[in-house]
């Protein structure tokens, strides 16, 4: 049969095409971190492009909406957190792509009031030069610095989760061929069974 090899060649070509560049899952993802009280992030596609003009909705741990906006041309968004609670960021691309990411309360500075309390974030409680205030400032600076340095690592991890390995592709193809073999065997057995007098 001349057909099989041609199709197999086609299949091989497609696989190589797909497996040659590092294949990333074609999904929209959103990444966000807290730096100080600002939560900033961006929405992107596993294959590398940024999701522009996508709708961003942020809901707090109490279910109340915290922020609604649109990503800019770099797929970025940012807003100020008022409370120290989990923020659930949902990005909607409008064409069926959707991504969710939760920024945990632990990432936000302790100076923010916890969820459920009323009142705005407290202003400096101690005079600027007292040791307690200096220590608090120092702690905040260190936190922000560490967050900034860890951020690229987390971004890489986030994107890495979606990497498609060649062995995944080969595994999938293997399953398809295996299933078809089973189906073929079963169908043949049925036919032979019917053919017997």
């Amino acid at each position: 049969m001349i057909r099989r090899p041609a199709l197999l060649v086609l299949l091989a070509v497609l696989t190589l095409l797909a497996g040659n560049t590092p294949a990333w899952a074609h999904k929209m993802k959103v990444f966000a971190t807290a730096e100080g009280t600002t939560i900033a992030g961006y929405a992107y596609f596993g294959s590398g492009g940024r999701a522009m003009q996508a709708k961003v909705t942020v809901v707090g741990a109490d279910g109340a909406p915290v922020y609604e906006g649109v990503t800019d041309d770099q797929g970025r968004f940012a807003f100020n957190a008022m409370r120290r609670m989990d923020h659930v960021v949902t990005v909607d691309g409008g064409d069926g792509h959707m991504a969710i990411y939760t920024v945990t309360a632990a990432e936000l500075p302790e100076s923010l009031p916890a969820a459920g309390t009323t009142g705005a974030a407290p202003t400096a409680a101690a005079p600027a030069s007292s040791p307690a205030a200096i220590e608090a400032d120092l702690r905040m600076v260190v936190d922000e610095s560490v967050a900034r340095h860890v951020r690229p690592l987390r971004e890489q991890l986030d994107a890495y989760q979606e990497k498609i390995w060649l062995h995944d592709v080969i595994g999938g193809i293997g399953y398809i061929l295996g299933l078809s073999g089973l189906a073929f065997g079963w169908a043949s057995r049925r036919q032979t069974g019917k053919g017997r007098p």
Partner: protein
Amino acid sequence: MAHIPDGVVSLPVLAVGVVVTVAGCAHALKRLPPERIPQVAILSAVFFVAALVHFPVGPSSVHLILNGLIGVMLGWAAFPAILVALLLQAVLFGFGGVVVLGLNVMNVAVPAVLCGLLFEAVHLRSAGKPRRSAVAAGLCGALGVLLTVLAVALSLAASGREFVPAAKLIVFTHVPVMVIEAAFTGAAVGLVLRVKPDFLARSGEPAAEEGVA
């Protein structure tokens, strides 16, 4: 985008997807002769890998669908081929989802079958004019993508999104895909028709006695 992830569409839409997919697969499997199974498997694998070929278009990102090609080559058997491929994509790559699988299969396979039927109609009247069939196949390649993205927009609309902006966005971003697939499908079918025309027969029998059933 052709693979809708879990959590985007509402329950009634999901249910419709499951029912249509199950019915389509049942119908296809009943009339699938065992000799055609290897071809179905290979085309299912082609479809499986095709979704990995993606590129950014405008604000979004799209991938090859190839359901026109599958429909033209397999007819009704496109249903199980696409079901298996989409299931594996969901499980192995995280494309789409398992809950929304019925809906995704419906959105891709129904246009595929329609294209297959359309192509059959043209092909039967084009004996001796393989060029015409190849062109028809190319148009079916583009049509398959178009119908699928419209179906996706409809699914989103039925779940509460606005249809027109979503449809415009999805159709616009998939125009390059339609062009590529039209060329690819036309070329592939042209080649097949030149080398082994029986491949397109819906049953295992040679093309001469094939009828549209």
